[in-house]
């Protein structure tokens, strides 16, 4: 397409700042809520279950659940933030401004997904800091931890963006995060190792993409995961490619955006 060679940086920044301003405006909901829920998870899982289950793969149970807890928030926050970010202008009608501005689809995605990913990373880091108050943490591969954090936030923000474009009501907006993402995260080894499951359910779990994310992230923390780290990276990149493909299709066809 002609005219898309130069990046409209002010436009990307305008969207990014606009979205981040909403995040800070709703700081209580954005930041305090995840901190409280993380603390509750530590009380319930860490104290109640952890007192009976000392270690998993040689890692104290309290520390073992930290990557899963971060991943749980990272996935749900990425999806929710990005989905709401693009759905709300569609709902309010202000999308007209985005469609009539000299801005390419790539730049729109960059602004919204960038902001959604930033928000979820901030929340992920807050949870990490909160967790370190409860359990001593040592991150074995900090660079890979950051890599997984970025990659997951980006991928699931893209996924959320697709949901925000697909949804035609607030119910649908909540449908995927609540009925698909959260259950998959809980069943994806966030609070246990899939090695602890019977062979049948272990095999079923391997079809859950979240298993690969949690496993990779846990490997970055403790040097141990349910699947090989290379497989985790490949699975995440494949999901990223799928989301990119969907977003490209949506903008090419104008699906739910243009008539």
């Amino acid at each position, binding site marked *: *397409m*002609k*005219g*898309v060679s*130069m990046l*409209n*940086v*002010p*436009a990307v*920044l*305008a*969207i990014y*700042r*606009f979205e981040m*301003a*909403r995040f800070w*405006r709703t700081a209580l909901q954005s930041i305090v809520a995840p901190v409280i829920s993380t603390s509750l998870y530590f009380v319930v899982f860490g104290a109640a279950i952890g007192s009976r289950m000392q270690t998993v793969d040689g890692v104290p149970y309290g520390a073992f659940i930290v990557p899963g807890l971060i991943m749980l928030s990272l996935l749900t926050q990425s999806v929710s933030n990005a989905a709401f970010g693009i759905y709300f202008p569609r709902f*309010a*009608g*202000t999308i*007209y*401004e*985005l*469609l*009539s*501005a*000299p*801005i*390419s689809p790539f730049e729109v995605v960059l602004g919204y997904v960038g902001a959604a990913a930033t928000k979820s990373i901030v929340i992920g880091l807050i949870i990490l800091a909160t967790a370190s108050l409860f359990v001593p943490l040592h991150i074995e591969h900090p660079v890979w931890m950051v890599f997984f954090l970025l990659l997951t936030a980006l991928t699931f923000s893209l996924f959320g963006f697709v949901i925000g474009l697909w949804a035609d009501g607030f119910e649908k907006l909540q449908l995927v995060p609540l009925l698909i993402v959260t259950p998959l995260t809980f069943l994806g080894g966030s609070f246990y190792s899939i090695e602890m499951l019977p062979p049948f359910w272990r095999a079923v779990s391997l079809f859950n993409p979240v298993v690969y994310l949690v496993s990779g992230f846990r490997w970055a923390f403790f040097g141990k995961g349910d699947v090989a780290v290379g497989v985790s990276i490949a699975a995440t990149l494949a999901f990223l490619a799928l989301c990119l493909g969907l977003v490209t299709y949506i903008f090419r066809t*104008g699906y739910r955006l*243009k*008539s």
Partner: protein
Amino acid sequence: MPPIVSIANLSKVYASGLHALRDVSLDIAKGEIFALLGPNGAGKSTLINVVCGIVTPSTGQIRVGGHDILSAYRAARRMIGLVPQELTTDAFEKVWDTVSFSRGLFGLAKDPAHIERVLKDLSLYDKRESRIMQLSGGMKRRVLIAKALAHEPQVLFLDEPTAGVDVELRQDMWRLVRRLREQGVTVILTTHYIEEAEEMADRVGVIRKGEIILVEDKVELMRKLGKKQLILHLREPVAALPDNLARHDLQIGEGGRTLVYTYETRRERTGITGLLSELAKAGIAFTDLDTSQSSLEDIFVDLVRERA
């Protein structure tokens, strides 16, 4: 001078099968105020939305400032400001922030002085720190105009700009539009208020069922299509018209105290001289006379009915 907006053979068929625009061709000159009139569902908003990039055209070509709206959409859109019909605003945002956001979206660096000027022009500066949801409907309309002007557009589309606003705001907007024209901005507006087009427009286009059925200079249109009435106030009331006046299009009004003669201004002979002479012959004297001209609204209603 080449037109600033050039629309050639534009058609739009929605997925539902609705043929919203049919082979529309239209040129808008730089600096003019063009009013697009048409009944509900005629295609006015679709036409604007296609030019602005919100709706995809089915066929045809549109250029803004010489830039194709599809292949050179960045350059084309940078020139355009759009004030939509609906009051679509970010309720939780502050006035200053939302107007600044619009400027950024169009690729321009921050310019607080420009934003301040725009807000002052629209009497919004005192409300700059207010959240949009705290504003009245009229103020929200002003915010939408401010957003459209934030990136200094050369072509401004106003889709039903004064729908549902009070008289004061309407007149404020008319003043604003004139000021923009003085600055060289081309203004294209759709309206239901024919009075608005009559007051402001240089040219008028009428769209009906997706087709442009007329584009004409407003004054010329009113001259060509306008009807005038000559009202004669009689010294003595008449009950009926004498036979020699029957051929004239005369009506008795106000209980026989006035005679109303309707004529078309575009005709070479209006028949006024003959009428006055025959009135004298019939011994009908009058004490006063006045004339009135049909409004653009009358012309519009006639046009739309004629083609129905």
